[in-house]
């Protein structure tokens, strides 16, 4: 299996551990990720407020680059990037007034592409559960994470509004993967897709912190020892803002590929555990 890999700005910055662990995990599973060398910003959500078309045009350029590489599928681990890439494609394939503007912009920049074969946009979670399959993953597990009480937290934009490969409010795909890795999954965590505040933590901080506090408090209450995330912004918010909460609300916040990688026998260093503020205390 071979995919174009779109890292996005976060995975090159504060979300380093996510990039490291994703690449390590996929290599261990013999899935090849080839980084789009000339990728640009996806236009992220803050941008949408300024200019919807510009945001779509930015994302679209990455789809074109992936196509130039001869790739049919593109993997985007960041929720915002994932959403924006899909959205750009939807606008292009739709027939609203936004499409006309988008096409004009693409024309002006002389972007050439085959519109009938735009690459499919996937989140790593989809690659693992659909293209690879949970059973196949399970066969590769070497060190089951016995006794790890993990809380699966999906965040919002991977689960919705697009695509529906899982439930938009109570998804289960990550739960299944964690179970396959041998962990004890707190599946009834009711806030699986409740918002972490996104960029609000940086702008309207008190509200953002409150949202994160609720997520952590509930995870603790249900016996969680660590939260598992699939988005760099969720991980950042949940981890960094614990410093502003009471001591008893400390909890490691891990990336899904970090956890799965451990179960495959990879080392914590390869999986970027050194970049975490709160390290898990559970034994492997």
């Amino acid at each position, binding site marked *: 299996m071979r995919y174009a890999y779109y890292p996005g*700005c976060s995975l090159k910055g504060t979300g380093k551990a996510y990039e490291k662990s994703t690449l390590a995990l996929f290599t261990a599973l013999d899935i090849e990720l080839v980084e789009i*060398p000339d990728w*640009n910003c996806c236009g992220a959500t803050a941008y949408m407020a300024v200019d919807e078309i510009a945001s779509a*045009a930015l994302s679209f*350029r990455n789809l074109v680059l992936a196509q130039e590489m001869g790739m049919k599928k593109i993997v985007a681990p960041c929720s915002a990037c994932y959403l924006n890439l899909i959205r750009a494609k939807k606008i292009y394939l739709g027939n609203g007034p936004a499409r006309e503007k988008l096409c004009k912009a693409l024309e002006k920049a002389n972007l050439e592409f085959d519109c009938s074969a735009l690459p499919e946009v996937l989140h790593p979670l989809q690659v693992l559960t659909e293209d690879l399959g949970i059973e196949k993953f399970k066969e590769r597990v070497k060190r089951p994470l016995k006794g790890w009480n993990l809380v699966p937290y999906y965040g919002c934009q991977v689960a*919705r*509004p697009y695509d529906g490969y899982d439930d938009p409010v109570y998804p289960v795909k990550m739960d299944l993967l964690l179970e396959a890795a041998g962990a004890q999954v707190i599946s009834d965590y009711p806030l699986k897709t409740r918002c972490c505040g996104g960029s609000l933590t940086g702008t309207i901080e008190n509200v953002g912190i409150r949202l994160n506090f609720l997520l952590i408090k509930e995870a603790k209450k249900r016996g969680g020892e660590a939260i598992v995330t699939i988005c760099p912004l969720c991980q950042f918010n949940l981890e960094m803002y614990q*410093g502003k909460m009471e001591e008893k609300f400390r909890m490691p916040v891990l990336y899904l590929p970090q956890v799965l990688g451990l179960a495959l026998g990879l080392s914590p260093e390869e999986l970027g555990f050194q*970049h975490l503020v709160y390290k898990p205390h559970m034994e492997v």
Partner: protein
Amino acid sequence: MKFKRTIRYEGELDRSLYYYMLSLPEGEGIIRCIQCGTCSGVCPLSIYMDFTPRKLIALVREGFSMDVLSSFTIWLCSSCYACTVSCPQEIKITEIMYALKRKAIEEGVYPRRFPVPVLAREFFQMVLRNGRSSESLLVLNLILKTNISKALSYVPLGLKLLKTRRLSLKKERTPGASEVKAILEGLKEGGP
């Protein structure tokens, strides 16, 4: 004691925003809103909003245009799409929030020195120059432009990032940044 009148008389209402929303593909749905309140119920931010999403839609329809555009609600919306996937009338509420943010910026009515629009602007400039955004630099700029008095309170966060080697002040740049610039500037010339 001076009282401020909070109700509006019919003559003061202005339905221009309503008609504008009806003209947008994502906005025309508001005509179908049955005011059931599901959106407000699932919205994780509604308790902090001056108007809940349901109320906001009612205000748009009734002509409280300025109240809507200058509200905090639209800037508190974090685009989590919880409302959109729950609305029984399939109204694209999140997209409506985006459209209202854009309109508020266009009309220049957003709360002054309020960080969200500033973030959006800074972000745009950075991508225009480099094709990519460098998070740490972006946040630094944001703090300097909106909240310099609180800058010190960000020190512990910065230290944590440093300690875990996640703070990078390196400018990220797309090799093809000029092509990105061409796309963005092409859009500007074409007009809205």
